[in-house]
């Protein structure tokens, strides 16, 4: 009888074992994060801060980790650096916010700043001791949400018009500076073997932000899509595809696809960003150059969207925030900016450093010029950006695929944006 009981007891133990293991795993998993602790550290204590970004590629990941730790050493801290692929990044950050397991230093892709800042999880940098005098105003705008500065971007980028020098020379075409010149050039450069021009038009952000320079340079706004300026911009932009100077396949092209077409000689000009430069330089026999994106009329300012990754300081405790702010400021130091710019083909957000960059890398001149008058991608739509983004993308695609004319497309886009 006693052995019988003991058997049952051990059976019970076996049955419960998985639960115990599960519980052990669950409690073991929570130790990773650093943020949120109410205790607060003293000034001279060494701290381990955590940083979160999406630089998963090498060498970016290692470079970033080293840079973070160099900066952290100045404030007696080390950094635990974690990178998550960009397509899972926002979900991961939101989860971290929800579980109060926030990193001390958080990278935010600029279009997402309004969403994250709105949560209240980010500390305004103006409340921390940071000097912002040397930055381009446009760069500070990128990190600003509702008049508070939340993030600093050491380096920024934007869009320019790349062109194939050999093809333009052969056709006797000058690099275009206005819309009329762009259309004439695209027409002259289109042959049976290639298109004159190409841009990204895939559903989603890449397709939308290639169009934004046309919208903004024409005086349009993301929140007044049915205004004549916006309709005119869409009509011009999609017209290039409808007239056959741009392949209609662009409705499924990412910026990388557009670059591939350009690099392969199947398009003579493209709208793209400077991050494509390394790949263009590696393409044998390709002679390219770039100019700012053409504007409606000669003399207009080109207003292109400004992109870049911002470094922000999530709300933790005073001491951690103080040191994190220092690291963010250090990441933005001129030497770091120039080094990053040269490595990643981006524009330093410090004006003087940007001029230095042009001396070392003349092909970046057009992009540096563009950045000075650029405007943050979500600057006029703020937290409405996601819906604006989606509707602009649908409008572009329905016009190119012949489902709507620009006027109707923009009216229905605006109707949906207004209804939000």
């Amino acid at each position, binding site marked *: 009888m006693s052995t019988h009981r003991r058997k049952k007891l051990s059976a019970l133990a076996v049955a419960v074992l998985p639960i115990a293991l599960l519980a052990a795993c669950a409690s073991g998993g929570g130790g990773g994060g650093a943020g949120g602790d109410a205790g607060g550290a003293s000034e001279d204590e060494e701290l381990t801060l955590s940083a979160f970004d999406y630089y998963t590629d090498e060498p970016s990941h290692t470079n970033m980790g080293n840079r973070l730790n160099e900066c952290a050493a100045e404030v007696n801290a080390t950094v635990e650096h974690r990178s998550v692929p960009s397509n899972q990044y926002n*979900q991961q950050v*939101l989860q971290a916010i929800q579980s109060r397991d926030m990193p001390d230093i958080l990278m935010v892709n600029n279009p997402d700043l309004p969403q994250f800042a709105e949560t209240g999880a980010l500390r305004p940098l103006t409340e921390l001791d940071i000097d912002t005098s040397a930055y381009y105003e446009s760069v500070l705008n990128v990190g600003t949400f509702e008049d508070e500065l939340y993030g600093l971007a050491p380096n920024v980028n934007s869009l320019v018009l790349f062109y194939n020098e050999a093809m333009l020379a052969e056709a006797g075409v000058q690099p275009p500076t206005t819309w009329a010149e762009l259309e004439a050039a695209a027409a002259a450069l289109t042959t049976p073997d290639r298109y004159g021009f190409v841009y990204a038009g895939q*559903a989603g952000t890449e397709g939308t932000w290639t169009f934004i320079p046309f919208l903004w340079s024409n005086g349009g706004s993301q929140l007044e899509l049915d205004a004549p300026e916006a309709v005119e911009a869409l009509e011009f932009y999609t017209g290039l595809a409808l007239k056959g100077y741009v392949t209609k396949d662009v409705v499924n092209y990412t910026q990388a696809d557009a670059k591939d077409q350009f690099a392969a000689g199947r398009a003579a000009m493209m709208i793209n960003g400077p991050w494509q430069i390394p790949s263009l330089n590696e393409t044998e026999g390709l002679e390219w150059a770039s100019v700012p994106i053409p504007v409606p009329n000669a003399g207009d300012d080109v207003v292109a969207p400004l992109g870049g990754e911002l470094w922000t300081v999530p709300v933790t405790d005073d001491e951690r925030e103080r040191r994190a702010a220092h690291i963010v400021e250090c990441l933005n130091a001129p030497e770091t900016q120039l080094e990053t710019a040269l490595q990643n083909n981006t524009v330093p957000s410090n004006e003087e450093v940007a001029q230095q960059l042009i001396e070392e890398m003349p092909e970046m001149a057009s992009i540096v010029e563009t950045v000075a008058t650029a405007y943050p991608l979500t600057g006029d739509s703020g937290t409405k950006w996601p819906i604006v983004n989606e509707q602009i993308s649908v409008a572009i695609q329905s016009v190119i695929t012949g489902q709507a004319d620009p006027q109707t497309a923009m009216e229905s886009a605006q109707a949906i944006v207004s209804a939000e």
Partner: protein
Amino acid sequence: MTNSSLMGDRTSVPRRAGGAAGDAPRPPADSGARRRTLRPRTRSALVTWAFILPAAIYLVVYFGYPVVSNLTMSFQDFTTATFFTGEAPWVGFDNYTAVIASGLFGKLTANTAIFTIVSLTVTFLIGLGLALFFNKYFPLNGVLRSMLLLPWLLPLIISSAVWRRMMEGETGILNVVLEGLGLSGVSWLTDPNIALYSIIIVNIWVGIPFVMVILYGGLQEIPKDYYEAAALDGATGWRSFFSITWPLLRPVVVVVLMLGFIYTIRVLDIILALTGGGPANATETYASRAYHLSFVNFEFGRGAALSNILIVVSLIVAAFQLRANKRASDLAG
């Protein structure tokens, strides 16, 4: 230690039994006996539950919790700020009304229906054909059959990327071949009227191995002597298929169709990788739209509402399939 506690139990028995007798007019001996007989029984019940518990906890944590929180989320104004503040005001059915009244809902429903029904039907027919084919003995049968599993083994994101290249309008291999044959190319992914069917083609390609493997397993279970006996009576070919194979394969067919339906209606990765829902929403289904609402537009309440609609539709269809099968097997039995 075990011994002493058992001893303690034993000594406590008469006292408690006496107490119980004092409260209620029950014979003390009976109560004591009941206690003694109950103990092992409660213990074995306890053991039973202890074995069920891990599975139950797993279900509650990984299935119950997400379903319930998805349900509550769909009745809340759940934004990114909610993640930090925890504030999500109740909005009743607003999310559902917004999703259904959005003007896109009709298109989503049509796309989801076409995508699911066409994918599943064609996948099933081809899968069944291949399973019947491989059920015969011929050289290299095993090699060919394992090669057909390839689509299943490749990560979807990779095969989708390859398909996207192949379906490229200007330089994709499909159009190059078509044009080489003197036919005109097709705007596989860029024509709003065609893109959905292009995605269906890819989905069929991905789904065939699954259907084939399960049906092939079912066919192997059918005893060969049935066919021999039928052949003696002159039933071969279609006749033997409809009189032997199909009825005996039916339970497997039901499982394949039900799993296939559930797998197909929630397909997301292929759509995102091939068209991202475009051009102009032409390839958006319930699943891809729910993803876009939640994780691109950050409208978590609406995303949850749409995915709940998706879950309800799946449940209804699954229930119908199960009932239809039960009736059929009742009739057969």
